[in-house]
């Protein structure tokens, strides 16, 4: 077993009680620190729930806003449709009233024309010089005198009969004037007869405007009222068409003139499309809406400029009559709403439904559409309004709510940010209050683990940490006490072991010396024997006696040495290893009992009875001293053995009176060679001195006159012997 040398152990070396723990792999590797744990805990229990709740409220707010917006949109749209329906109805009603009046006047004109054809000519039918007959037939009016113009196609040879009809029809001139002047929308009033006669008011330069062989019956404003197209013989409205009489794009209210199941002709009242468009433009429609008129055939009759922009169409410009119009000229197909993809579905509904609603999209913009019938005309009025304008208030509200939502989100984000910052600062403070003391305690434990057992702790405001800190410090103190005790024990054991080792070495040396001392007289004896064997016949008797005497002296030396050896064997009661008492007085008594056989002994034992650390060694040393004394003292000499103790030192003195010379009153030291002193001091004294020195004491010899005293000073233990 390797010895531990006291005082040479580094302070920082781990104590044996805890060094095994230091070799273990740290269990904290790979684990998060308290700082991170605290912050994560804050995140889990505070920050994340707050964020989740805030986001939930924000989402609820956004969803609620959206739902409110949708409900608002639906409600506003319903309101808008009702409003548009009302507007469409109103505008349709206004136009319908006007058209019905015109239709009624057309019927009046038809009846009066029929009556005129049956009746007599007025008294003053007018000047005949306004008319001129053509060479090959026909008749034209030459100038305007404020009365209607008349025209006969060259297809008819105008005679009296025709002139008579012209004069009879003069009775409707006033009616035609009244119709024209009663309504500004009316641009002309006319009568076309089946025999190619035309009477038209206001005046038209028929020579320029009409072909001389004009066939009026092929125009729509005539045949639409004939028996094939109008079997009911009622007033009807034409599709928009280019007026041959030079008034541009018009629609006509026409009615047949029947006499005895013969179609005499058709009367008509023309209305300009432009005037209708102006009426639509002037209409006050909500949300900047617009209205268009659509014919039963799906053709756009009239529309305001706003509709032109939206539909991408233009009202046809006024026609420039560079030549007579000799055929029906209708609006192009682009004015047919059924030909437009956005209005296709709506066009189909117009033919089937009197009124209705729809949504159409132009250029990506949705429009609410409400349509209604225009009286008995068969026309439809369509009112359009852009949905974004209809929903502008809802959209504005939505935008406001959206902006407020963003603001709310920003405020929430800012509040969450502030909250996170506060939570982070709080975690920092908690870390300062908790992690740092824990870290400091961990450092304290680490230092204790490294051997610096005496640590300090300044206390903590948290009771548990405060208690833990003081317990750790107290544990270090306890460990330090234990270490000191262990070191003390180690030193005691080491000292004892050292003493044992030195004692063994001395005993070995002593034995070696004894062997040496024996071998020398043996060598003398052996030498004599060899010489006698080799030269016995030549040795004289005196020499033989001399050699015998040498041999006896040598034997006596050997005997003496053996006797001493027998005396100094450290034996106990069993005769083997020392098993005697450990207290001082008992050790002295045992030694005296072994050594002093024939001499009177005076024992003065110690008043106290301390414990001897190595009773066997002390007993051996004392036995040697007593052997020395008994070897030189007379049998009757009183030997006084006295013992005393003071503190941790005991004193044992052996004194006697003698009359033989004991050399040496000198002190013996442990370094003194036995051989050098053998002539002055006995080997007993040498051995005793060696043993006492090993035990930490000393042996002194003092001679006064004829009294010699050997004094042993040796350390002892006060109290219970150590285990």
């Amino acid at each position: 077993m390797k010895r531990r040398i006291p005082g040479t152990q580094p302070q920082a070396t781990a104590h044996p009680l805890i060094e095994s723990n230091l070799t273990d792999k740290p269990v904290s590797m790979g684990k998060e620190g308290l700082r991170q744990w605290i912050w994560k805990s804050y995140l889990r229990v505070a920050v994340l729930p707050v964020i989740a709740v805030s986001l939930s409220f924000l989402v609820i707010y956004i969803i609620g806003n959206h739902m409110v917006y949708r409900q608002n949109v639906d409600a506003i749209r319903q309101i808008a449709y009702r409003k548009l329906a009302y507007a469409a109805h109103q505008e349709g009603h206004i136009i319908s009233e006007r058209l019905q009046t015109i239709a009624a006047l057309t019927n009046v004109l038809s009846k009066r024309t029929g009556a005129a054809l049956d009746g007599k000519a007025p008294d003053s039918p007018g000047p005949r010089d306004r008319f001129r007959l053509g060479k090959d037939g026909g008749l034209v009016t030459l100038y305007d005198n404020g009365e209607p113009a008349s025209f006969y196609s060259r297809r008819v040879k105008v005679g009296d009969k025709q002139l008579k009809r012209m004069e009879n029809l003069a009775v409707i001139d006033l009616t035609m004037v009244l119709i024209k002047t009663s309504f500004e929308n009316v641009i002309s009033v006319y009568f076309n007869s089946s025999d190619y006669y035309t009477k038209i008011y206001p005046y038209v330069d028929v020579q320029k405007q009409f072909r001389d062989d004009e066939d009026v019956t092929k125009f729509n404003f005539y045949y639409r009222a004939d028996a094939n197209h109008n079997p009911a013989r009622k007033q009807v409205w034409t599709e928009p068409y280019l007026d041959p009489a030079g008034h541009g794009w018009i629609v006509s209210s026409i009615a047949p003139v029947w006499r005895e199941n013969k179609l005499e002709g058709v009367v008509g009242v023309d209305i300009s499309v432009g005037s209708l468009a102006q009426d639509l433009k002037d209409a006050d429609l909500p949300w900047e809406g617009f209205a268009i008129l659509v014919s039963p055939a799906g053709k756009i009759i009239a529309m305001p400029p706003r509709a032109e922009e939206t539909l991408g169409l233009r009202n046809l410009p006024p026609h420039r009559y560079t030549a007579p119009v000799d055929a029906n000229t209708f609006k192009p197909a682009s004015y047919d709403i059924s030909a437009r993809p956005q209005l296709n579905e709506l066009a189909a509904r117009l033919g089937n439904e009197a009124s209705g609603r729809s949504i159409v999209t132009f250029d990506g913009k949705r429009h609410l559409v409400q349509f209604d019938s225009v009286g008995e005309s068969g026309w439809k009025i369509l009112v359009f309004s852009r949905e974004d304008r209809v929903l502008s208030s809802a959209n504005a509200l939505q935008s406001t709510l959206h902006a407020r939502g963003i603001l709310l989100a920003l405020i929430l984000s800012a509040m969450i940010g502030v909250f996170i910052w506060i939570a982070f600062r709080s975690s920092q403070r908690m870390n300062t209050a908790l992690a740092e003391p824990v870290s400091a305690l961990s450092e304290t434990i680490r230092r204790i683990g490294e051997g610096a057992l005496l640590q300090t702790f300044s206390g903590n405001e948290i009771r548990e940490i405060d208690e833990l800190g003081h317990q750790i410090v107290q544990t270090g103190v306890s460990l330090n006490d234990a270490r000191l005790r262990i070191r003390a024990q180690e030193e005691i054991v080491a000292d004892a072991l050292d003493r044992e080792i030195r004692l063994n070495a001395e005993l070995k040396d002593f034995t070696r010396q004894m062997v040496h001392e024996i071998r020398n007289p043996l060598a003398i004896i052996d030498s004599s024997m060899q010489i006698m064997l080799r030269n016995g016949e030549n040795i004289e008797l005196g020499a033989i006696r001399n050699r015998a005497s040498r041999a006896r002296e040598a034997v006596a030396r050997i005997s003496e040495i053996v006797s001493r050896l027998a005396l100094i064997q450290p034996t106990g009661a069993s005769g083997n290893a020392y098993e005697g008492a450990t207290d001082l007085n008992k050790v002295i008594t045992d030694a005296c009992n072994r050594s002093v056989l024939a001499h009177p002994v005076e024992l003065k034992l110690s008043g106290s009875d301390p414990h001897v650390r190595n009773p066997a060694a002390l007993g051996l040393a004392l036995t040697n001293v007593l052997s020395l004394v008994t070897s030189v003292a007379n049998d009757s000499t009183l030997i006084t053995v006295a013992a005393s103790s003071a503190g941790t030192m005991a004193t044992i003195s052996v004194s006697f009176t003698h009359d033989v010379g004991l050399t040496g009153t000198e002190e013996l030291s442990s370094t003194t060679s036995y051989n050098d002193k053998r002539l002055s001091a006995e080997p007993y004294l040498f051995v005793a001195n060696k043993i006492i020195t090993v035990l930490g004491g000393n042996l002194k010899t003092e001679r006064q006159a004829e009294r010699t005293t050997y004094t042993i000073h040796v350390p002892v233990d006060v109290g219970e012997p150590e285990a």
Partner: protein
Amino acid sequence: MMGTILCIEDEGELREDLVDELRQAGYNVKEAADGVAGLSMATDEGVCLVLCDVRLPGLDGIELMKRLRSKRDQSSLAVIFLTAFNDPEMLHTLAGLGAHDVFVKPVDYDELLASVARVQVGFP
């Protein structure tokens, strides 16, 4: 012609017997009773072998051997030790000093003389 043998032994009776045996064997023998005197005589002219006890008063045999080896002219002087110590450490120490032979007491004179003769044969 045989060289001179120096016998150093503190035991007088034993030294006397050794000297007698060596002289009877034909050797010239000088004697000394302690190490100091022995060291002095070892430097005398004609001494070619030292028969030396280990334990000697004044200067023991080991120290005497070391001093002889430290002197140039005596560095090769033959030495036979006689000792009452028979422990291996002592024998090892003596051999390490360059002793020609070591005898543990009691000494057999036949063996001693044989050893001395072997040493003498090697001398010029």
